[in-house]
């Protein structure tokens, strides 16, 4: 199968999606949309030029343009609305959390809101306290939203297709630090279903449940640990809502040792929920305490060594794995 860089797969998906369905409108700043501040941002600008009627640059009004996308979704379009840096989603919180998430339920299933919110989350290197949010935990606490966290070229393409096809409000949370990851991507169209975890690496000793960039860090840690004789299984849920808990528990029952790795702040983060569910279901199936690798509970500092100090690094994942087999 052909190999593509993550960013290529992501761009290919978007182009196919916009070209293939008139109902798709993409609302974003053209300079930084979709690809953020990455070197590939000009490639998004090319797509914007190709579809000038359907790639639309709004004012700096996240609340209103997210609301606009919610309305457009109610009225038959399939809008993708780009918050770009995930921190800016906080500006649109009322529309995402209190309108989009609730509309289908409050109407008892009458009103569908097939909108996709696109966010670039996480510690990106120098984003500091106000530009480094990973809001997926806050969003997981808000029922009514589908939450997607791709981690590989194949996944980013297939999951983006499914996100746009979904009839529900979907938060698509990407990470610029993934953009240069290489991987196989089939030529043919392969939407990836929501709620199907992917075992990114097989191993018998420890299960690591990781999301987004932490999948790549966990795979790197697993390589290192293989040299130390520890065989790590890396499970990537790919979507938090819906969550494929069965696949996770099947791996846990096999290895009996678990590390959860996620980039949100630790308290009430995604790792907390994963840990809680595994602890509930796995009480008598575990051979060691579940360990959690997450961002420390402090605002994000700007300086390199400070940011590093609070990050869930590859080294910290490796350490947690070692501790759990010790």
């Amino acid at each position: 199968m052909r190999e593509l860089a993550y960013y290529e797969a992501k761009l290919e998906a978007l182009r196919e999606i916009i070209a293939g369905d008139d109902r798709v409108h993409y609302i974003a700043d053209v300079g930084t949309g979709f690809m953020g501040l990455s070197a590939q941002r000009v490639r998004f600008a090319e797509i914007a030029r190709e579809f000038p009627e359907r790639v639309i640059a709004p004012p700096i009004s996240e609340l209103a343009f997210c609301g606009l996308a919610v309305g457009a979704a109610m009225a038959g379009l399939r809008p993708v609305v780009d918050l770009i840096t995930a921190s800016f989603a906080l500006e649109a919180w009322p529309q995402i959390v209190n309108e989009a998430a609730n509309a289908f339920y409050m109407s008892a299933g009458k009103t569908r809101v097939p909108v996709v919110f696109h966010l670039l989350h996480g510690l990106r290197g120098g984003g500091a306290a106000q530009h480094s949010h990973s809001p997926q935990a806050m969003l997981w606490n808000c029922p009514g939203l589908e939450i997607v966290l791709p981690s590989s070229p194949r996944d980013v393409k297939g999951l983006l297709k499914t996100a746009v096809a979904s009839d529900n409000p979907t938060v698509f949370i990407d990470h610029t630090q993934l953009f240069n990851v290489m991987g196989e991507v089939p030529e043919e169209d392969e939407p990836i279903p929501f709620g199907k975890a992917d075992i990114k690496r097989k191993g018998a000793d420890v299960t690591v449940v990781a999301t987004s960039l932490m999948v790549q860090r966990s795979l790197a840690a697993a390589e290192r640990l293989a040299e130390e004789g520890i065989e790590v299984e890396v499970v990537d849920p790919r979507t938090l809502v819906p969550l494929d808990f069965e696949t996770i528990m099947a791996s846990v029952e096999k290895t009996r040792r678990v590390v959860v790795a996620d980039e949100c702040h630790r308290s009430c983060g995604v790792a907390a929920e994963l840990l809680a569910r595994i602890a509930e279901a796995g009480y008598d199936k575990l051979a060691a305490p579940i360990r959690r690798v997450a961002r420390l509970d402090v605002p994000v500092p700007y300086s390199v060594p400070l940011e590093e100090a609070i990050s869930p690094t590859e080294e910290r994942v490796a350490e947690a794995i070692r501790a759990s087999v010790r």
Partner: protein
Amino acid sequence: MLVIRHFEEELIALHAEGHARGHFHVCIGQEATAVIALSFAGPGDYLFTTHRNHGHLLARGAEPGRLYAEIMGRRDGYNGGKGGTLHTVYPAGGFHHTSSIVGGIIPIAAGTAYAARARNTGALSVCLFGDGALEEGAAPEALNIASLWKLPVLFLCENNGKYGPGAASGAEQSRTMAAYPLTDLPRAYKIPAIQVDGTDAAEVFRAASEAVAKIRRGEGPQFIEAQTVRWPGNESNWPVAPIATRLPLAWDPGPVPERQREWYRSCDPVLLFARELVARNVASREELARIEEEVLAQIDEAAKFAIASPLPDPAEALRDVFAPMERA
């Protein structure tokens, strides 16, 4: 208008009797705006309303019985009791989403207008909200976008902020809005805006028909501020009906306090309209009284229908969180 009035008055009674819970808001005093302005909306148009929505839904043909049932959380409610008074959704009438968050619908209404134009359906959005909504940042943000993109949306602001009958009308100040008259705000964003007396059906008629025509001609968003005086029963958070409305009050208010009398005289759109109809010989007092009897009977039946409607099955609570996946 009469249906709305009697619906709301009966609701206050039903609530007092414990048939509904939570807080709720009635449209008394604002009936003319909804009934007249919404008469220009077509079947494919998108309508949005707020916490104060009952009158808007009724004006678009919602059945009083099913609306009561929703407000009482019963199975026959339009949303099976999931939405309730604050969020009733009635797609057959064009209401696809109702938000109790002040300002919440304004960007959404711009969005349905955006979609209608993109899909070239000729539809427009009508966004009904209170004066308070303009204080939320969502409103100016959405006005800006609607203006820039010339979206087909009618912003219809029901300004019930004139406190109490007898307050000086005209260009008085607001304690919470510096952009006053309110039309200053849409105008800053280059949206044509006019003020009308929201209790005067004829004035609302002219303004709404003209605004809708402009929007349908592609002239972009329009803004109407419909001013009404706050109904005396609606000054606390819990509406209390001072006296039940009957049309004969239009001619003989009886022994009521001066405030109430003044409201009947110059602010109550239902009584104003009744007087107008009689003065112009469109209907006689007797004909109106007969119609009122029918309306009262209809409301009575609606209330009985709702009370008789069963509570929903608790298992329902877990349904409708997500739509099943569309398969291309």
